[in-house]
């Protein structure tokens, strides 16, 4: 058992840290409320939050009907055969419209999900769903189907706090995953190794814990997993299942996919791999092997139940150690939501928000590859750091966002739209008139709001000095400039 935090050590900063890491942060009032609830009740609240399903109805387009195959079937065309030239033309038209729909739907889905992350009463479930999305990283660029992407997101959410074994089994049958890693194309006679390789390399064991022969055997075991084009659901085709004897991890039998998953879960290294990854996401990089092994042993013994694992982590003293607090770089998705929280504003409109996330390197449903986002220091380069600084200007309603093409060839440069910021920020709430009379108090209040901690005197003084010549009349614009300065710092990128 990890040493728990002593209840007496619970303070406002730790409440803020819990909310930042287990969820997506909060306003000063929300942190106050959590702090006053006390340590035990705070952790309970996050782990056993009310169901939010009714508050977030699924996007209207997210139906089994929305697939390209369905459109082709509806038009009375054959799925497999090319058909007459007229048929081919009709298919081309369907495909073109379908591509446009997918693009539109995916932008909608990104907005839908970020809004849910930002406003749900169950933020831990969304935070875990984001973790699982990065873990089972699947991209619409190859799946090309917004319904399947939505469905996978829903499946990840359902299992987010359940047990990891069920999650892996669900992913092995997930229609988006079956397209993404070619499982649906895997043939009895020619098993495709893509899913089999990543299942072990990325999803459960980590490289070095299996052989190339194990991959081949596993690929055979998963043959027969198909997606029904008529309703976008998984089905098992016994005819396409390779039922020969397979040798996996030294055992021989006619294994199916679930057998393979069970044998993988039987390895302590699987629990260790997952605990290390979860710890890195929620706490810090490179946890000590002893800590990982200790947590992993219980994780495996508890049938890979995620809820008790998260409970132990959030109650541990280590989670609140100096090595953890404000030592993580905000993920772009987190950065976006935290901006809205600290400013008590709504999220930016979906299109500029997606544009911003692209510049910062994290678009949900479009990970760079099946390994997901590297995270940590990889989020930050000179380019993305300046982009964060400049996008915060847009976020506080201080300027437009120029959607520019990558690169530049002066003669042909496309004129790009300047999207004006429509941010509505209640400056009286954030910087009440009474506070504006006392620049020191104003800087302190905004620091707590933005950084969830006080600044060192040297830094506070910079901001106070900035306000000094404007002191007579600190209007909303001055507060904006101050906020932009505070957000244009290395420190604001940390959580």
């Amino acid at each position, binding site marked *: 058992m990890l040493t728990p935090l002593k209840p007496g050590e619970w303070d406002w900063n730790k409440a803020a840290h819990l909310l930042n890491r287990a969820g997506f942060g909060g306003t000063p009032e929300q942190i106050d409320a959590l702090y006053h609830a006390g340590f035990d009740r705070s952790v309970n609240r996050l782990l056993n939050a009310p169901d939010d399903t009714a508050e977030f109805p699924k996007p209207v387009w997210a139906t089994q009907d929305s697939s390209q195959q369905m459109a082709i079937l509806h038009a009375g065309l054959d799925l497999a055969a090319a058909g007459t030239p007229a048929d081919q033309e009709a298919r081309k038209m369907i495909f073109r419209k379908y591509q446009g729909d997918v693009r539109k739907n995916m932008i909608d889905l990104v907005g839908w999900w970020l809004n849910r992350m930002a406003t749900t009463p169950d933020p831990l479930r969304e935070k875990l769903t984001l973790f699982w999305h990065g873990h089972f990283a699947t991209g619409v660029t190859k799946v090309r189907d917004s319904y399947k992407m939505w469905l996978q997101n829903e499946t990840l959410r359902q299992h987010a706090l359940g047990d990891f074994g069920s999650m892996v089994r669900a992913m092995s049958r997930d229609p988006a995953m079956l397209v993404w890693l070619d499982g649906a194309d895997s043939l009895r006679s020619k098993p495709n190794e893509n899913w089999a390789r990543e299942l072990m390399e990325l999803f459960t064991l980590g*490289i070095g814990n299996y052989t190339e022969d194990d991959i081949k055997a596993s690929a055979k075991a998963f043959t027969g997993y198909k997606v029904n084009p008529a309703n976008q659901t998984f089905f098992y085709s016994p005819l396409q299942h390779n039922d020969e004897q397979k040798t996996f991890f030294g055992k021989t039998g006619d294994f199916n996919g679930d057998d393979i998953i069970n044998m993988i879960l039987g390895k302590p290294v699987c629990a260790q791999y997952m605990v290390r990854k979860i710890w890195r996401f929620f706490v810090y990089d490179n946890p000590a092997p002893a800590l990982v092994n200790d947590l992993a042993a219980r994780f495996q013994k508890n049938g890979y139940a995620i809820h008790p694992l998260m409970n132990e982590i959030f109650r541990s003293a280590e989670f609140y150690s*100096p090595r953890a607090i404000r030592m993580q770089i905000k993920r772009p998705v987190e950065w976006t939501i935290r901006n809205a929280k600290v400013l008590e504003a709504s999220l930016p409109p979906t299109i500029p928000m997606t544009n911003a996330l692209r510049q910062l390197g994290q678009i949900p449903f479009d990970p760079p590859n099946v390994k997901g986002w590297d995270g940590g220091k*990889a989020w930050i380069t000179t380019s993305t750091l300046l982009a964060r600084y400049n996008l915060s200007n847009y976020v506080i309603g201080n300027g437009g966002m120029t959607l520019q093409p990558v690169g*530049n*060839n002066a003669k*042909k440069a496309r004129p790009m739209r300047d999207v004006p910021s429509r941010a509505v920020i209640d400056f009286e709430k954030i910087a009440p008139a009474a506070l504006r009379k006392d620049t020191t108090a104003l800087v302190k209040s905004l620091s707590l709001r933005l950084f969830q901690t006080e*600044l*060192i*005197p040297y830094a506070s003084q910079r901001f106070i000095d900035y306000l000094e010549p404007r002191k007579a009349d600190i209007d909303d614009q001055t507060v904006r400039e101050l906020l932009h300065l505070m957000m244009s710092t*290395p420190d604001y990128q940390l959580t």
Partner: protein
Amino acid sequence: MHHHDDDHIIEPHTNTLHTRREFLRTSMLGAAAAWTLPVFLQKTFFELDAMAVDSAVQVTTGKDSPILVVLQMAGGNDGLNTVIPYADDVYYRSRPVIGIGADKVLKLNDYVGLNPRLVGLKSLYDQGHLGVIQGVGYPNPNRSHFRATEIWQTASDADQLETSGWLGRYFDSCCSGADPTVGVTIGNELPQSFASPHPTGVAFSNPEQYRWVNNDKNGSDQVFKQLNQPDDAGVDDNTGGSIGMLSGNQHNNENPLDFLQRTALDAQLSSDKIIEIACKYKSVVDYPRTHLGDSLSLVGRMIAGGLPTRVYYVSQGGYDTHTNQTGTHDRLMTELNDALVAFTKDLQAQGNFNRVMLMTFSEFGRRVQQNGSNGTDHGAASPLFVMGGGMKPGLYGKYPSLTDLNAGDLKYNVDFRSIYATILEKWMGAPSKNILGRQFPFMPLV
């Protein structure tokens, strides 16, 4: 505070640009001894000092230094359909659908030729500006995209884990204290080949946006600079005196704040110059409007403007052609060809072609045999291109046998680290043995 002897610090060549070292010296060394430096700057000082007494130090900036451009073809390029063994029946038997007809191949000799889309590269070859290196790989090839890419980026053995990149170690070894733009990546992410314990290099894709933009003309800029540059570091106030604004941060190697501060400093130092060049220099040739074309156009402008960069990094994705590969691969070859042709013309017009060498690489080649869906699966050895005005052109290495295979894949005969060693030592003038961990044989490329 540590004493710094000016005599030990080598002056950079250029007068126009503040190198990081120059910047640190002018802004920090004159500072009162009571000032406590941010931890990462302290480290930098000790290193600069240690480095200054090392005679192997190479001053890296200056207008005439050779430049390396690395072009990553991400996803595993099908080498067999790039440099095609058109005289080999095994090629056509293995690839009944996706094999490229001998009549279309752009022949280099009586056995191999280039993909028909690489017309411009063929001319460059004929003009003596292109090297084609065949059968490049390494022992015990890995077929995972991530691991194989990591092996190429870090130049490690297949069974060794190395975190720093080969170019990062070059920067560390030869450019320590240099301007951060010594390494430039077009894009938002630095490649692992730039990784090092002391990260060097900047990334950008839109020079016009590569600066801090604000609306307040009265003083914001000044405060911003103070917050993001250590040119006016805080006095010790019992918090460690870091420009890190928050109390309670511990300093250690993993500290992300040190890293963020360093990146903020690099952004500040590079932004003005990059924008200035972007405003002043426009391409005189038409680049194709592709991602790669845009990237190389930007590199061309930065070279024209004299950015003191030794290594540029660009990438082209999409080479993971498991299904119906022909159309996709054709398009990629066309994009590659058109972008390289434009880049060459640009550099020739600038008069810089002789000081630039471009090297392509991909994490692996693909299987000899086409697969069940008219594509190809992950393979091993494959060819790469080296291009430039100052190199010895020709066909290097030998084409791997199509029948003597290693688990269905081509065997390598040129270790990619021999190419790195040659480029480092013969082109960049750097000690390749230190950077690559051992001495790899040189190739007569330069």
